[in-house]
C-alpha cells in the first residue's frame, strides 16, 4: 500500500482533468510532461481537457484485480477526447453489448477503486456513454 502522497500528487489530473498544452506546437500532454513528445518544447500552459470523445477500443475485464472485485466484470476502453488527448478508463453505466469502436463517451468523476482495509478510497474519471 502506498503513502497518500502518491495519491494526492495525481489529483490535478484525476479530479480536475488538467493537461499541459505545449506553447510551441499546441499538443496537449496528459498527464503533463516536462518535454513535449511532439516537438521537444519545454514551455506549457495548464488546460482543462475536453470532456467528450470517442472510444478507440474497449474490452470487458472478467477476471480483475482484488481492488476491483466489487465491480467485476467491468468494461474498460481507450478514448480520444475532442482535443486529441487519449486515455484509458473504465466505462460506466454501459451494457456490454452496446460497446462499439467510435461510440461517443464523456468523462465523469467517480469512485475508481478501493485499496481495502485502512487504504485509500480512490477517485478519478470514468467514461460514460453519451446517448
Amino acid at each position, binding site marked *: 500500500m502506498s503513502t497518500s502522497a502518491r495519491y494526492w500528487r495525481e489529483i490535478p489530473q484525476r479530479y480536475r482533468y488538467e493537461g499541459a498544452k505545449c506553447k510551441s506546437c499546441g499538443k496537449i500532454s496528459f498527464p503533463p510532461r516536462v518535454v513535449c513528445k511532439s516537438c521537444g518544447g519545454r514551455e506549457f500552459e495548464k488546460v482543462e481537457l475536453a470532456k467528450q470523445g470517442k472510444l478507440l*477500443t*474497449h474490452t470487458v475485464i472478467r477476471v480483475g484485480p482484488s481492488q476491483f472485485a466489487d465491480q467485476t466484470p467491468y468494461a474498460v476502453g481507450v478514448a480520444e477526447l475532442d482535443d486529441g488527448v487519449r*486515455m*484509458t*478508463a*473504465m466505462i460506466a453505466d454501459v451494457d456490454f453489448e452496446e460497446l462499439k469502436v467510435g461510440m461517443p463517451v464523456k468523462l465523469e468523476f467517480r469512485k475508481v*477503486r478501493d485499496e481495502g482495509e485502512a487504504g485509500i478510497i*480512490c477517485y478519478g474519471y470514468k467514461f460514460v456513454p453519451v446517448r
Partner: protein
Amino acid sequence: MRDVAVIGVGMMKWGELWEKSLRDIFVESALEAVKDAGVDRIDSMYVGCMSSGLFVGQEHLGSLLADYLGMGPIPALRVETACAAGGAAFKQAVMEVGSGMSDIVLAGGVEKMTDIGGDGATFALATAADAEYEVYNGVTFPGLYAMMAVAHMDAYGTTREQLAAVSVKNHANGAKNPHAQYPFELTVDRVLNSVMIADPLTILDCSPITDGAAAVIVCPLDMAKDLTKNKPIKVLASTHATDTIALHSREDIAWLGAVAKAGELAYAQAGLSPSDIDLAEVHDCFTIAEVCAIEALGFFERGKGGASAESGETAIGGRIPVNASGGLKSKGHPVGATGIAQIIEVTKQLRGEADKRQVEGARIGMTQNMGGTGGSCVVHILGAE
C-alpha cells in the same frame, strides 16, 4: 565488433515447479548450458528477470545466482525490461563479447511465478503497464491485449476464429517439444469456448503462469571451434527499440511500433529482408500479439496477419514457420526466461536438433521478445555457419 556465436544452450521442462526455488531452476539450466558448450569457465553473466522482487521478494539476482552457480566472483548483472528481459540479457552478452571485454559469457533468464497467488501474479505482471494511468483505472494485462485485438478486428476484419487458430497452431508445435509446460493439442472450438478473461480473449488465447529458466553461452566466433564441439550459431543482428508503455499513447493501437523498429534495424544490421528468414520465434503472450508481431516484422502486410495461422502459412512447413517451439502459449512464459528460450529454439533449429518440430533446411532464424504491450522489443537474427 567481433563476430559472436552461441555455443551452448540449456533449459529444463517448464511448469508449476513447486519443489524448486528460483535459484534451483536457474542453476539447473545454467549448468546444462555450460555442459552443452563444453566450457570450463565463464567470464561474466547476465540474467534476465522481470520481477523477482514482486514474485519471490528477491532482488540482487546477479550476485545470488553467480554464487549458487559456483562462479563467483565473476561480474554478474540482472537485466530488466519487463517481458523482454531475457532478450535484453542476451543482447548484453553479445555486446560484451563483441566488444572484446570478455570471451565466454552466459546469458540466462529466470522467473519463479508460482510462489505467489494469482492476484499477486496479476499485480506483478501489470507493473509492465503504466501504473498511474492504465493500471489505476482497472485495466489488466489481458485487458490491454484484448483492446489491441478489438482494434485489429475493427480495422481489418480479423476474427475470433483466426486468433484461436494461432493458439491451435502453437499447441500443435508445443506438443512436440519435451520442454513445453502444456504439450497438448487444442481445437478452435475449445479455445473459443474456454473461460472468457477479457473480451474477446479466452484463457486459451493467453500464455500461462510458469516457473522456468533458460541459459545460453556465447563466445567470439573465431574461438568457437577451439572451445566447443557444437556447431557454432552466429549472431547476425542484435537490436532493441522502445515505444510508449501506455497503449493509449500510441498512434495506432493495433500496431507494434517498437517491434517494427527493432525489426528494421535487425534486417539492416544483417543485410537481410523478411523473405530471407527461415523461421521466427515471436512473443505470443496472447494470440493477438503474434498477429501484430508478424505484421511489424514484415512477414505479413499491415492488417493481414490475422489469417496467418488459419491459412497454414505460419505452420511448420508453411511459408514462414512461427513459434515452432510452441511459443509462449504452449511452452510456457516464465517472463524473464522467455527471450533466452527463443534463442535456444532457434539455435536448436539451426543445428538441426529440433527433432519432430524441425524446420527442414533452416539456416537463418529470428527471435522477437517484447516487454509490456510492446513498450520494448529486442530482436535477434541467428545464422548457421
